């Protein structure tokens, strides 16, 4: 079996005529300054996208991005420089620039030590070439046909297939030598349904870290059926209720609740700086005891998974909250060092041109004992939300929002009718204390999550079983 370090060296260093050992020199250059950590991060990424509209695949794009990012860290101070050129002179110049802002001290020769390869979570082959381009076009056309066949009220169909192939190589003064080769694919459908002058949309997507051959085996046509179903439901939607009420959330993608309500607030940088509402809460009861919430980067084929994070630490199953008690923050090297904690494999960056920081991988709640049916029966007047668009959080005040994209009004324990999109708002720790029931139906999202933080986007996963939360503010128009 070829190991990923060999493959990364082949892809990233060989074309530039650089030997792996030659990177000792820029690491030593960094070490001339007063540093806890000097790091070289080399990356190449290929991305391809095909899009269909008006029943034709008219838009296609392809891009290549590559470069080197060099970091010098001293306690909580970081010097950073990067270059789009992978060659030894640029790397040395960047090392010079990155380290220059920190005070100089004794020089130490850095030796690169190989680290143990992490568990294999996804194939190291390029998804862009895993099926023929003609097959990609056929897939998009088939989805279009399927969607239009479902119902004559469907007037527009948009489909998109995108694939990314990324190679990273990481060397650092703490002995890190690691590489990762990451596939990522995503297939999506959006439809517009019209009736009596009303127009609504429905969407469905799936994806993950696997090849397009694997994607074809996951019943992609079901996406067309699901998108149409959603659009037709939304056509019948009435104004959503406004006010404070009980909410049942469906399983899977509604886990964006956790991403916003607790996820960001448990990233170590905010807690080290004590700017998070969860700062100084280690060991305390922060949610209902029914909740155990984890962040797991070590799941096979998942969009949010990482064999190694962008600092070379293996993707890890980390228990964030156990039966309501706060157990761990998500750490990267810089924050773990300052907090005296262990790294949890959450050091991520959008690319070589950005600094890493603590980010989520796949964040979800473990299943409980109740059924979704039981939960709905408990609602006197409230909503049952099965799909969401996205969310946002202020980690200092703890306020978070997430917006429904498929939702039903419930009265006296029965689903009455679908309602229009509404934003739900709450205070993370307070809302999570009001989780009254946790379902037995854990699902992860179908592979569609994008997380933004400080201008950097990374792919993530979310998930949960069905949940009943008491007293959430629902932003409808019907008072």
């Amino acid at each position, binding site marked *: 079996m070829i190991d990923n370090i060999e493959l990364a060296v082949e892809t990233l260093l060989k074309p530039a005529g650089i030997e792996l050992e030659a990177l000792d020199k820029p690491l030593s250059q960094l070490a001339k300054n007063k540093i806890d950590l000097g790091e070289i991060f080399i990356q190449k990424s290929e991305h*391809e996208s*095909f899009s269909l*509209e008006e029943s034709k*695949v*008219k*838009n*296609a*794009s*392809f*891009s*290549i*991005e*590559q470069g080197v990012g060099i970091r010098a860290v001293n306690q*909580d*101070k*970081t*010097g*950073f*420089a*990067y270059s*789009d*050129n992978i060659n030894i002179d640029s790397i040395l110049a960047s090392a010079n620039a*990155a380290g220059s*802002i920190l005070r100089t001290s004794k020089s130490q020769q850095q030796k690169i030590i190989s680290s143990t390869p992490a568990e294999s979570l996804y194939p190291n082959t390029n998804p862009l070439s895993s099926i023929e*381009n003609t097959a*990609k076009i056929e897939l998009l056309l088939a989805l279009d046909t399927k969607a239009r066949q479902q119902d004559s009220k469907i*007037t*527009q169909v948009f489909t998109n297939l995108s694939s990314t192939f990324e190679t990273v190589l990481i060397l650092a003064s703490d002995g890190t030598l690691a590489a990762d080769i990451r596939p990522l694919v995503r297939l999506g459908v959006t439809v*517009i349904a019209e009736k009596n002058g009303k*127009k*609504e*949309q429905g969407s469905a997507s799936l994806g993950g870290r696997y090849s397009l051959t694997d994607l074809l085996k996951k019943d992609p046509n079901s996406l067309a059926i699901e998108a149409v179903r959603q659009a037709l439901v939304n056509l019948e939607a009435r104004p959503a209720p*406004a*006010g*404070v009420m009980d909410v049942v959330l469906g399983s899977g993608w509604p886990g964006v609740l956790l991403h916003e309500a607790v996820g960001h607030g448990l990233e170590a940088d905010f807690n080290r700086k004590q*700017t998070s*509402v969860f700062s*100084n809460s280690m060991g305390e009861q922060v949610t209902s005891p029914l909740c155990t919430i984890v962040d797991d980067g070590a799941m096979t084929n998942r969009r949010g998974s990482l064999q190694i994070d962008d600092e070379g630490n293996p993707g890890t199953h980390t228990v964030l909250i156990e039966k309501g008690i706060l157990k761990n923050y998500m750490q990267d090297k810089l924050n773990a060092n300052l907090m005296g904690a262990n790294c949890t494999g959450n050091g991520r960056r959008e690319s070589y*041109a950005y*600094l890493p920081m603590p980010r989520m991988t796949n964040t979800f709640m473990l299943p409980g004992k109740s059924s979704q049916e039981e939960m709905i029966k408990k609602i006197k007047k409230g909503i049952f939300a099965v799909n969401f*668009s996205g969310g*946002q959080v202020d980690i*200092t*005040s703890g*306020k*978070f*929002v*997430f*917006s429904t994209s498929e939702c039903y009004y419930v009265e006296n324990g029965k689903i009455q009718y679908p309602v*229009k*999109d*509404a*934003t*739900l*708002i709450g*205070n993370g720790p307070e809302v999570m204390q009001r989780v009254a029931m946790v379902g037995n139906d854990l699902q992860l999202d179908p592979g569609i999550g994008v997380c933004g933080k400080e201008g950097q986007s990374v792919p993530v996963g979310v998930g949960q079983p069905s949940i009943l939360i008491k007293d959430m*503010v629902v*932003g*409808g128009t*019907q008072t």
Partner: protein
Amino acid sequence: MSDFVKHEYLQEIAETIIKRARQKGADQAATSLGRSEGVSINVRQQALETFEHIQNQSASIQIYLNHKKALVSTSDFSLSAIDQALDAAFNIAQYTAADPDFYLVEKEHLAFNYPQLPLDFNNDASHQSLIDTAIECESAALNYDAKISNSDGASIDSSRATMVYANSHGFNGHNNTSRNALSCSVIAGKGANMQQDYHYTFARDPEKLESAATIGKIAAKRTIDKLDARAVKTGNYPIIFSADIAGGLFRSFFSAVSGSALYKNLSFLPDSLDTKIFPEFIHLSEVPHLASGMASTPFDGEGVKTKNRTWVESGIVKSYVLNSYTGRKLGLTTTGNAGGIHNLLVETSSASLQELQKNMGRGLYITSLMGNGINGVTGDYSQGASGFWVDGGQIQYPVDEITIAGNLKQMYQNIIQIANDVDLRHNIQTGSILLEGMTISGDK
């Protein structure tokens, strides 16, 4: 000026790309190249936290072949990388479907005599003095009031960029810009009752930045004003969107009248040309060559002349926002807006923000929005919000953990007045906006 952002080199590369594309068989081709260089500095608790050297470049190339097209991007400007990118473009193009409207904008629309806009200024401040400015800014915030308990820090960014666009009609134009920004974010309160807020200044000319002390003090005041926020009873109230966030209302409008949303039938304002969408005192116009504008540009993303234009007059939609392709799909001509609108000015009343609040009497003054609960297809609007409760025309106390909901079509008709406190730091420059009839969800 550093050699890295000199436009002549990029214009040469652009020329080479167009030539190579034609040599390889493209009917037409276009390319956009960019380079930027600068620094991004964060300080926190009065010490340097991060120092980033910025230097990047990218090129994107669009080829047209028998009314099929493909787009490729690369960050490598070497001839071999450009050839590889072009080969990839030709490869994927052959699999796509042709569209009779896929071809370059007609030559007569191109801005061959584009103006040189004064958007690029040197900043010769040393790295240390930039760090000192950020530290001074944070210090002003930390010392503003004892209630300031923590800091997210202050940031200072300074960079210069050059952008080039060229196509096979012989157009090859450039635009040099600089950007300088100073911001500060602090925290007040403790434990479960913490609030954070920020303030910032932006300018192309570093001399035009607001002072570090001013930014720090305003950041601190905004933060303290949020402490001890309460919820509001669920109900219908008039609201004022503060000038800082009010532009979002018009941003949704411009998305809805963009050619892209219209031809795809994804707009909540279909067939809105010459119809009255807003009250008659609403006038929206675009001024793309404004020297102080956030989004000034001498030509659009297709090299088309940018010019002053009225989008809405007396509440009536006068034009859609179009590029060459979306124009063709609608049987219309490009408006020179490939890439968006450029410096949108909203006409205001002569009322100050205080007068607007007096006029409202009793309602909410919203200063911050959360989430993306805006449905562009239906106009349905539902956002998380925070701000202040107003009664007797005066701010009474801060409010948060509420949502505001309605439908944009109705909200536009419900605009009552716009104050003269225009926020110049946005592409869409507007004063605070008073509108009625929003549903607020808060306390029971």
